[in-house]
């Protein structure tokens, strides 16, 4: 392999790594706060990408119908639960929080979609439409079993993935979409080596988002509450942090990250309704390197996955995924060598 090719592969790898970084952060966030291994992360990202493609081509995105259906279902389930509990007074608030709030982005989307929209607006609309999906689904699926074991939650997450990719097929159809790049042209980063602005945008956006993510976690009270819940669930409850509320915030953030992933990847790769699992699984490899708990290690893991994938596709394109996933074996060996098994981990195993 010549130096030139290595550099080109590195630039490509960094582009992919930036995607896995955001997805990996989302997976670690969701797992540490709610103990859910969020398999459907990639599916949400796909919804983001396909929604953007629909908006760009002047069509009304079916995501609106999906959000509306989910909101209606959630409100129904919540009302039944409240009536059973005998707390009727909470019904109006529930309708507002779970019914009307998620529908907020649908209205401007319905009014604006179909026209020729500027890029920033399509991106904003696509993000806003994707954000309610995860918290609504999570409320329906994970909330009733929030205290179940990690394995049960994982199975529920897997089912949710199949359901979402099925819904993807139903709503968006089988054909693939690729959106317009946000930036055209390329820049010579080193003599003879060019990187497209689009890839630089991916890398830059991902780094900025990751940095914002860290600042929010370190500095804001809600970020501290999320960290506290991840560190010590009982302690968090004792200071008055509501696990259900932190879970909802977490899923909103995960949804937002997934939306960004979808929007950043859509101009680079053709996205199909079932492209999500591969993104999610590769990000999962990065997150596993971070032990599903450490954000900096997850960032390193995502970098490793992105670069390895890029180089592997050069060495042996057909074996690319095999090579990436085999990274799990040394990662798990090293982790199991250095980790001490805490007692509460043992409790959660079935």
């Amino acid at each position: 392999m010549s130096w030139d090719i290595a550099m080109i592969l590195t630039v490509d790898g960094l582009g992919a790594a930036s995607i896995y970084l955001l997805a990996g952060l989302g997976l670690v966030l969701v797992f540490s706060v709610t103990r859910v291994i969020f398999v459907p992360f990639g599916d949400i990202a796909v919804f983001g990408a396909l929604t953007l493609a629909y908006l760009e081509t002047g069509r009304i995105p079916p995501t609106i119908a999906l959000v509306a259906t989910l909101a209606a279902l959630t409100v129904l389930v919540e009302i039944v639960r409240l009536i059973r509990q005998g707390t009727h007074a909470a019904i109006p608030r529930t309708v507002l929080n779970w019914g009307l709030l998620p529908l907020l982005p649908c209205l401007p989307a319905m009014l604006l979609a179909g026209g020729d929209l500027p890029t920033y607006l399509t991106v904003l609309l696509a993000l806003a439409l994707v954000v309610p999906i995860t918290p609504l689904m999570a409320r329906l699926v994970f909330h009733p079993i929030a205290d179940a074991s990690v394995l049960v939650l994982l199975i529920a997450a897997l089912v949710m993935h199949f359901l979402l990719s099925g819904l993807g097929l139903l709503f968006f159809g089988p054909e693939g979409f690729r959106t317009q790049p946000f930036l055209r042209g390329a820049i010579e980063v080193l003599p003879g080596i060019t990187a497209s602005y689009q890839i630089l945008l991916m890398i830059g956006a991902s780094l900025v988002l990751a940095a914002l993510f860290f600042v929010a976690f370190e500095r804001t009270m809600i970020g501290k509450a999320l960290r506290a819940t991840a560190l010590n669930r009982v302690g968090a409850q004792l200071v008055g942090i509501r696990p259900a509320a932190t879970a909802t915030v977490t899923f909103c953030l995960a949804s937002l990250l997934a939306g960004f992933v979808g929007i950043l990847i859509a101009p680079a790769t053709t996205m199909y309704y079932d492209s999500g699992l591969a993104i999610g699984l590769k990000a999962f490899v990065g997150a596993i390197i971070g032990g599903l708990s450490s954000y900096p290690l997850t960032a390193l893991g995502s970098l490793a996955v992105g670069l390895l994938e890029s180089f592997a596709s050069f060495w042996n394109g057909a074996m690319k995924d095999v090579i990436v996933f085999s990274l799990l074996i040394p990662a798990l060996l090293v982790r199991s060598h250095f980790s001490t098994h805490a007692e509460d981990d043992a409790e959660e195993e079935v």
Partner: protein
Amino acid sequence: MTALLEIKDLHVGYGQVEAVLGVSLELEKGQIVSVIGPNGAGKTTLLSACIGLLPSRGTILFDGEPIGGLGVEARVARGLCLVPESRELFGEMSVSDNLLLGAYSKRPTRSELLARRDHVYERFPRLAERRRQRADTLSGGERQMLALGRALMSKPRVLMLDEPSLGLAPLIVEEILRIVHDLRQDGVSVLLVEQNALAALNVSDYGYVLETGEVALHGPSAELISEERIFASYLGGV
């Protein structure tokens, strides 16, 4: 005078096994009430049920209102606060962050939040020295102080302390109990669970003796101390 916290005929169980069998007790405003008894008497179970970590049958009234159906965070928001035996600190976070989160349920303004933290630092100068340190690097006594300080951040009306002296050096126990005693001046009522019966009775106004999930005896602390039976069974003739 109505009690601030009133527990009537409370039953708490783990599955089939009942650990608390029909306990009734009262805590009045500004009072320190101790619950003493041997290991396995159901003391910790009682507190866990009061804060809502364990489901229970019976009545729990807080300021005259039933709170038995509320979640933990709703009880905390009303001013009930538990410092459990295991402290339940946020180990990887700084002392300061642990304290700030203590006031989470009350959502005070930024200036009020910092004022409360400074107040806790005044009460526990040791925590002020360690403010940037991670909670899991603190000593046992400092952890207990942090747990107490975190609880005080929410300005609780009833503070429930589970074995605050457990595993601590005698000097630190003395300090902790002195602080518990001082809390009364801030208008905090304390429900103190202790195995160290003599120390608990010395700081409290009223005492309950729990035995295999039932109240075996109760009365003003001064009387309980002089009661020969307790002396023999729990104080080990100290």
